[in-house]
């Protein structure tokens, strides 16, 4: 078997990112869409860790920690919005969440 190079990790990360993109585009349940966004952020974190190892520089891991912090903030606010919206409209389908559309 070939040795594992950074390209292997990059392909894994790209595939995981694509699964996230697919989830955002295909699913209609807003909670699943949020989880797909988390998948994409994870793929980005794998990328940062790979390059951090490849370049022998820990700055990539520092940025991955910032990504995790922002993901936590995003999840908290997004889920708060989902709860508030659900109380008003009783739906989670993004096709019906269109009151801000012109």
């Amino acid at each position, binding site marked *: *078997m070939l*040795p*594992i190079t950074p*390209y*292997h*990790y*990059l*392909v*894994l990360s*790209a*595939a*995981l*990112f*694509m*699964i996230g993109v*697919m989830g955002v*585009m295909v*699913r*209609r*349940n807003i*909670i*699943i869409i*949020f989880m*797909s966004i*988390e*998948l994409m952020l*994870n793929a980005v*974190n*794998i990328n940062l*860790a*790979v390059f951090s*190892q*490849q*370049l*022998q*520089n*820990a*700055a990539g*891991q*520092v940025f*991955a*920690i*910032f990504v*995790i*912090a*922002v*993901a936590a*903030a*995003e*999840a*908290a*606010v997004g*889920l*708060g*919005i*989902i*709860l508030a919206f659900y109380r008003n409209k009783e*739906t*989670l*389908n993004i096709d019906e969440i269109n009151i801000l559309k012109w």
Partner: protein
Amino acid sequence: MLEAVVFYTLAAFILGFGVLVVTARNTVHSVLFLVANFLCVAVVFVMLAAEFLAIIQVLVYAGGIVVLYLFVVMLVNLKRPPEAPLDTRRQSRAGFVLAAVLLAELSAILVYTAGRPAPAPVPGPAVAAGTGNTEAVGMLLYTDYLVPFEVASMLLLVAMVGAIILARKDV
């Protein structure tokens, strides 16, 4: 050899759980698959010699964020299925096509750059001998990246206040 076996097994698990997260009918199952996915990604971080990141991944993602998701899934008990199909056929097809185009683009970039020699290491600030990954990350976090670190803490505070206000009863 061992590394290859571990990597391919982990990659299969990560991608499999990712697909299950996206395709699961039941949202609770989806959240549980997300936990498994995050744990596998944490093992990948260990393979990449980023132990501190792996611990953060398990504590913050698998421990904190996913519990938040589970709470919301449990709080919004749907009386009707959330995805009553309107005209999802066309939308799904467009989503598949767009995602395939993006994957082709990323693969093209990878193939294009694969032949080049690996870039030379860009060593960070010198770390004292005998210290590990956590010391290196902590050193960077509290010296070079102190201002972004404080901004991130501010962001988390604002997000906390915003989430509490949004989730209040009388919004």
